[in-house]
């Protein structure tokens, strides 16, 4: 059991080590990199199955018991996120086989890719706040390298903003961790859930705000999102897709974990603030996208907008809202990453990401157009695609707590999302190719299509056979709302009883 919980981190790290040693032997590196991503996906699936049957799994590193050692905890949320990361890792690894140039591969793309996967998995699984910081930094370093790999000028220009914003966020996170340790004397998250209620409310709220800013920069919420649309469209498509799909969601995951397990002393204030942030993030992101005319820049602004929906679910702080936020997050990772990958195929045919220089793809390649429609209209929330159900759950949670203004905002933002997706559809697919643009005779390599088709199928499955996904989201919502099970799994029965006695159980 211990092996299974450590594997999502150790496996990619070991792969990265071997890939470094194989530096320069591209064919072997490619095979190993892809195969390892697939194995990681399988391991993650086994982990989720095990969590579903046995409940929350815990491992204490080095045999040091919590709260003294470092714990890894897999509840349903963590296991689902690790599985999603495995799916994305595999999809992107396959896509990169044709998308990435040999120069970047020689510069160390493959090992860094696996270090990134390890960092993301570590952030999802750790049950210790300082350890979370360490995983954040690991995935940051890997993402810095991947983002600027190749040193193209627009990459450097976007990369420097990405690096600057994220380094400041890391400093703030560490500041918060230091102060939290000073106030409570522990950094184990379950132990913190037990000890934070003893901290004076004012101090607890101040700490919550520091963490809100630190996680908020990483999750790209308003007003801390500017670095995302400045950088995510610059690297190769495969890397863009992984970043756009997965990386900001690590920040959202940290918000979800932090503001359900730790910072719940003054819910009216913290989660009320989150509701405002959610609304403004949605609107600003979607308006920013409306002003853009570059395929990947439009998508980047939409990432920001859709983070708003996830934060909205968190702000409601009900089982339905939290489950909805997670359902939305998973749907969004698949759909968003898929759109990035489709943008790459569109570029393969038409040679550009600029909508002005794209066109005629529907006549040229109907299958690509269908794939785009599935992902784009799912993102815009068309029934019966996955995005519709995701929005429905979050908005129903809004009905429950009678947050009418936020519900109204989220509905109108949905319309604007549709506008952006229709804009891409009209410019790139429906209207004829502009003069001077010669569409490349296809078909594009199957390795580019395979992950796109797989992700589209997942989107369809989440839409047409949504029952099992809902059941899982419901369970996650319940687990996040009442963290007693989490505390029991990490610290044992006595601590859980104390937690309930404090009124921590909801």
């Amino acid at each position, binding site marked *: 059991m*211990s*092996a299974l919980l*450590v594997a999502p981190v*150790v496996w990619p*790290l*070991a792969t*990265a*080590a*071997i*890939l*470094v*040693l194989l*530096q320069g032997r591209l064919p072997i590196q490619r095979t190993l990199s892809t195969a390892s991503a697939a194995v990681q996906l399988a391991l993650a699936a086994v982990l989720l199955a095990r969590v579903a049957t046995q409940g929350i799994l815990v*491992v*204490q*590193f*080095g*045999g040091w018991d919590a709260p003294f050692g470092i714990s890894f905890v897999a509840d349903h949320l963590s296991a689902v996120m690790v599985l999603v990361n495995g799916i994305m890792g595999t999809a992107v690894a396959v896509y990169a086989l044709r998308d990435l140039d040999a120069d970047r591969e020689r510069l*160390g793309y493959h*090992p860094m890719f696996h270090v990134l996967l390890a960092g993301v998995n570590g952030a999802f699984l750790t049950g210790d706040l300082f350890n979370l910081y360490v995983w954040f930094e690991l995935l940051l370093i890997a993402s810095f390298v991947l983002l600027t790999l190749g040193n193209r000028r627009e990459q450097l220009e976007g990369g420097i903003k990405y690096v600057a914003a994220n380094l400041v966020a890391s400093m703030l996170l560490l500041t918060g961790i230091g102060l939290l340790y000073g106030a409570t004397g522990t950094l184990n998250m379950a132990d913190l859930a037990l000890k934070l209620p003893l901290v004076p409310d004012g101090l607890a709220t101040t700490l919550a705000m520091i963490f809100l800013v630190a996680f908020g920069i990483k999750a790209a919420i308003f007003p801390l999102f500017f670095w995302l649309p400045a950088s995510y469209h610059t690297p190769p498509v495969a890397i863009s897709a992984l970043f756009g799909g997965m990386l900001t969601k690590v920040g959202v995951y940290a918000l979800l974990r932090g503001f359900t397990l730790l910072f719940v002393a003054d819910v009216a204030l913290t989660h009320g603030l989150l509701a405002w942030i959610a609304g403004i993030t949605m609107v600003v992101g979607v308006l920013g996208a409306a002003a853009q005319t570059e395929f990947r820049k439009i998508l980047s602004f939409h990432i920001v907008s859709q983070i708003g929906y996830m934060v909205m679910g968190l702000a409601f702080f009900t089982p339905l809202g939290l489950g909805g936020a997670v359902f939305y997050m998973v749907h969004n990772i698949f759909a968003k990453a898929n759109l990035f990958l489709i943008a790459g195929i569109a570029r393969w045919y038409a040679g550009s990401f600029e909508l002005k220089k794209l066109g005629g793809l529907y006549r040229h390649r109907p299958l690509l157009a269908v794939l785009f429609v599935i992902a784009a209209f799912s993102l815009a929330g068309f029934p019966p695609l996955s995005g519709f159900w995701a929005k429905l759950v979050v908005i129903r949670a809004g009905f429950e707590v009678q947050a009418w203004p936020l519900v109204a905002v989220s509905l109108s933002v949905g319309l604007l999302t549709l506008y952006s997706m229709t804009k891409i559809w009209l410019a790139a697919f429906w209207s004829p190719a502009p003069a001077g643009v010669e569409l490349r005779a296809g078909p594009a390599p199957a390795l580019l299509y395979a992950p796109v088709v797989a992700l589209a199928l997942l989107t369809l499955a989440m839409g047409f056979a949504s029952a099992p996904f809902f059941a899982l989201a419901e369970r996650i919502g319940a687990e996040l709302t009442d963290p007693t099970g989490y505390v029991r799994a990490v610290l044992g029965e006595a601590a859980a009883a104390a937690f309930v006695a404090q009124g921590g159980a909801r």
Partner: protein
Amino acid sequence: MKSLILRTTTRPIIVVLLLISIFLLLRGHDLPGGGFIGGLVAAAAAALYAIAFGADAAARLLRVRPELLVGWGMAATVVAGLLGMLAGREFLTGLWWVIAVGDQELKLSTPLLFDVGVYLVVVGVILRFVLSLEER
């Protein structure tokens, strides 16, 4: 940099630095020191050599590419963690083997292996940066 004084003094200094780095690495478990600090000192020695004789000379002296050091170092840390698990304990659990050498005892352990891994990673990463900065 073509300075006779620097070049002449560099060679003995490097020997001392490398010895200190190994000393720091080995005493690190119970006393101040460890893989990171030892690695820094070793990297400082190599950086000094690169400054005095140029990046090419430093790369020749090193013989292996810095990336390989990073790879072996990462592999060593992962193996150190896994050994604990192979022994049926949790990941990263420390295992100790005490071997009698004459009347002294030699203590080998997975934390030592882990530290050696850290040492190699630190040396490799810093050299990678130093060499790429010195090359221009």
